[in-house]
């Protein structure tokens, strides 16, 4: 096999040194009747495997074949060419977790920069080195709050991504924690509701799952009055113009990092970012990099606060996470370095503009109406007299990915509502053109005619 480098002479010498006469003899500690031969295809060449993957890939219909208006948690933004080229360097890609700090300063500095950019973007004071994705970041945020407050309930806005609600349930249920919905009207979380004093955290998403911009200030005040923390799940691109969780007084900021320099990739190149205020730092899960000095006074970077982690604390750890999404966090670091504050403001402004223009265009069509009348960032929900599934299928035939079917997406979540049965969540970003918007408009006109 090509990745095994031994010549026959090597193999013989190595077996001799190990004191056995065959490779089979090395497996002597295993009961021999357990040996088996796998029923798998035989190995193939690199060229054949490349061709095989190309063949499988050809059975997909790629986004580039469509005009697309689909978000729902995963978004298509411009990725500066530096991002994949630099973050994809094999020195970064094939390194392990930087436990030997002296030999891993490059990775460690990159993570330290990542933490700094995420803290800056979210307006928080500290960040970890990433978790699996936006959904598990919400989960980890809630666990942090449950540990910190020693309470047993989480109050969730129905504006939280419905899939994230389900993931939260899957994680909280085994330990018996309660999840309950916040009051939610006209597509927004009610800012003036009373929060129970058994609530560890209020979880609110901005912009929410319907694209609507939430004002966090009111709910933060109510939550803090009740002694609860606020977990704000935010879209990182929106933070170029929208109030940051830190400015709104949230305690923990989380979110899906994919929009920052990563492709949609079927949702398979995600990472969760997670930042918090100073008092919570020692309860933050996951790896964290800190500055340190060597004995000659040189500054370096190292994994720190490891007393929180599973390899030290075992069942009392703040989380079981060890492997994270470091390489994707690195993509985001390069992305944010390219964009800077000015680029983030600009991209957010373009998203806001295109979505407003898309909304204006579609609302000109008879039968199209807005589901919730409120300001949106880069997603907007509309309904038509026809079932959403049929509308989306008809648009698909015309080469348009029209959006997310809200009725289906919100099933088994607090977001579920009769109102949504004919509703479609559309999305526009800086990559949406006038031609795209016009094509969507005329296609939808034909579909509804």
């Amino acid at each position, binding site marked *: 096999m090509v990745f095994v480098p031994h010549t026959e002479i090597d193999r013989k010498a190595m077996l001799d040194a190990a004191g056995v006469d065959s490779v089979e003899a090395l497996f002597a500690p295993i009961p021999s009747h357990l040996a088996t031969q796998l029923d798998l295809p035989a190995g193939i060449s690199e060229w054949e495997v490349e061709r095989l993957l190309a063949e499988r890939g050809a059975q997909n219909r790629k986004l580039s074949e469509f005009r697309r208006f689909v978000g729902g948690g995963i978004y298509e933004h411009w990725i500066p060419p*530096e991002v994949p080229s630099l973050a994809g360097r094999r020195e970064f890609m094939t390194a392990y977790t930087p436990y030997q700090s002296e030999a891993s300063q490059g990775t460690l500095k990159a993570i330290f920069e990542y933490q700094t950019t995420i803290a800056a973007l979210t307006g928080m004071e500290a960040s970890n080195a990433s978790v699996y994705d936006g959904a598990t970041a919400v989960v980890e945020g809630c666990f942090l709050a449950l540990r910190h407050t020693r309470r047993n309930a989480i109050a969730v806005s129905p504006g939280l991504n419905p899939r994230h609600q389900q993931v939260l349930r899957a994680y909280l249920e085994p330990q018996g924690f309660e999840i309950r919905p916040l009051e939610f009207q006209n597509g927004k979380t009610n800012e003036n509701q009373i929060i129970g004093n058994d609530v560890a955290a209020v979880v609110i998403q901005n912009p929410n799952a319907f694209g609507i911009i939430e004002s966090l200030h009111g709910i933060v005040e109510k939550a803090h009055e009740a002694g609860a923390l606020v977990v704000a799940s935010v879209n990182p691109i929106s933070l170029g113009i929208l109030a940051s969780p830190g400015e709104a007084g949230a305690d923990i900021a989380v979110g899906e990092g994919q929009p920052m320099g990563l492709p949609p990739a079927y949702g398979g190149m995600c990472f969760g970012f997670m930042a918090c205020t100073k008092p919570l730092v020692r309860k933050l899960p996951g790896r964290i990099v800190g500055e340190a000095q060597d004995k000659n006074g040189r500054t370096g970077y190292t994994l720190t606060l490891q007393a929180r982690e599973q390899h030290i604390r075992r069942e009392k750890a703040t989380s079981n996470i060890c*492997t994270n999404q470091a390489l994707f966090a690195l993509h985001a670091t390069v992305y944010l370095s390219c964009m800077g504050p000015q680029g983030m403001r600009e991209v957010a402004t373009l998203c806001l503009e295109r979505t407003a223009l898309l909304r204006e265009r579609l609302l000109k069509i008879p039968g199209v109406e807005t589901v919730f009348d409120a300001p949106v960032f880069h997603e907007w929900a509309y309904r038509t007299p026809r079932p959403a599934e049929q509308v989306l299928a008809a648009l698909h035939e015309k080469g348009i990915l029209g959006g997310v079917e809200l009725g289906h997406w919100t099933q088994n979540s607090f977001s579920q509502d009769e109102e949504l049965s004919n509703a479609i969540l559309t999305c526009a970003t800086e990559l949406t053109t006038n031609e795209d918007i016009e094509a969507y408009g005329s296609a939808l006109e034909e579909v509804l005619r």
Partner: protein
Amino acid sequence: MSEALIYQRSRPGRYAYTLPPRLDRERDFTAALPKDFIRKNPPALPEVSKVDVVRHMTRLSQETISIDSHFYPLGSCTMKHNPMIADRALAGFGLDGLHPHQPDGDVQGLLKVFTEMEAYLAEVTGLDAVSLIPSAGAQGEFVGLAVIRKAIQARGENRHVVLVPDTAHGTNPASAALAGLKVVVIPSTIEGLVDVDALDSYLNDDVAALMLTNPNTLGLFEKDIETIAQKVHKAGALLYYDGANLNALVGRYRPGDMGFDVCHLNLHKTFATPHGGGGPGSGPVAVRAELEPFLPVPRIRTVNGEYRLDFNRPDSIGPIHGNWGNVAVVVRAYTYLRLLGHDGLADVSASAVLNANYLRAQLAKIFPNTTPGLCMHEFTVSLTCLSKSPANESASKSHKQSGNGNGNGNGAPHVRAMDVAKRLLDLGIHPPTVYFPTFISEGMLIEPTETETKETLDNFVAAMQQIKREAAEQPELVIGAPHTTQVGRLDDVGAARNPVLTFCCTFQ
């Protein structure tokens, strides 16, 4: 020359992006938003040019040791070569351009890869059904244990204890706690295997599962695994396989055949996907047929010859990820698996075990406390012999200045496993895992993997021999290591006491 942080290159007004123009230059949509929606202070992100970003990141990559640059025999981490064909095949597959909200009909090629991969991993593990969704080994453990918990509840039982050997990875107990289960630690024999006789006294009606890594964290095969499985099953509990060490067995032996009921794999270990400086990984979970209904949603089913995602699974533990987990890792692992095939996979474990045993035999000549008999894919060395180095006045003095806390009270310096690890960095080798498993004093856990040549292993042996000699003759050289890196040993205690976690802020 050490590269400074990118923030130190930042100058107000620089930028490194281009964006398309506004479509409507008349209206200001931001100004139309309510004031309290708007950010007051712009985020303090770097303001740098394109050249700055490129040079900075290129230099950081050069300040990082990786498998592509160095031998990396990190025990329990399986740092094997990551085939470059997987990078190219992934690009050729076109994963980047697929969206999770596209209709199932648009992603038939991907769902075919998933379906095939589930079947391949079921065959590799000797189990019946696989979920590819868990993002890492730790999430696989949570899923596996949550499935067990749910299956036991469905039986109408109230078992809430997970047995974990004292040799287990720390993640095992942490995952059990997350799954709402209580951890009870079971003792090992002197050789480090499960104490089969003692096991009986731990098995009762409260026990949901026994979690084992096999080979265990010492690189030893649990030779009584079938007896253990019988006892566990007889007690009404399930047997969980932590796949961290599957590289020793892959293609030759299967957890399912040994009696395991649930198993997670680490694709970033056994299936050669890159570790990414800490992630992403992928931790698929395989189970026996009767546990399949409890696996996370979505599942894939075939309807009229078309693959469809199925969310309607009432017994499922629910979704555990916003989408489909680390799909890019799964596709890379699929590439690796197809490239190797059944024959190649059997070669993986054979050569992984051969390399480990060769290295073990060579090191045993230098360090008496090396795993004595045959090991599997990794083995331990205890370096206590180095602390018996002859006392040396000058070394002792220089050692006191270094303030590392070594020393045996008689003025003679102790060379510890961590010192050896750091000295290896000077010699161009990434050190093995140190101080794990914890009960091996001054322990190193060494896993060479199958992709290393005999010359690389010989070079490692020579380096260890040299360090042993240095420990006797000039211990300060070892205790003060590393000498060739851009920073020396960092003050971890100080870093944790007074954490500086971002460029501008210090926390008390």
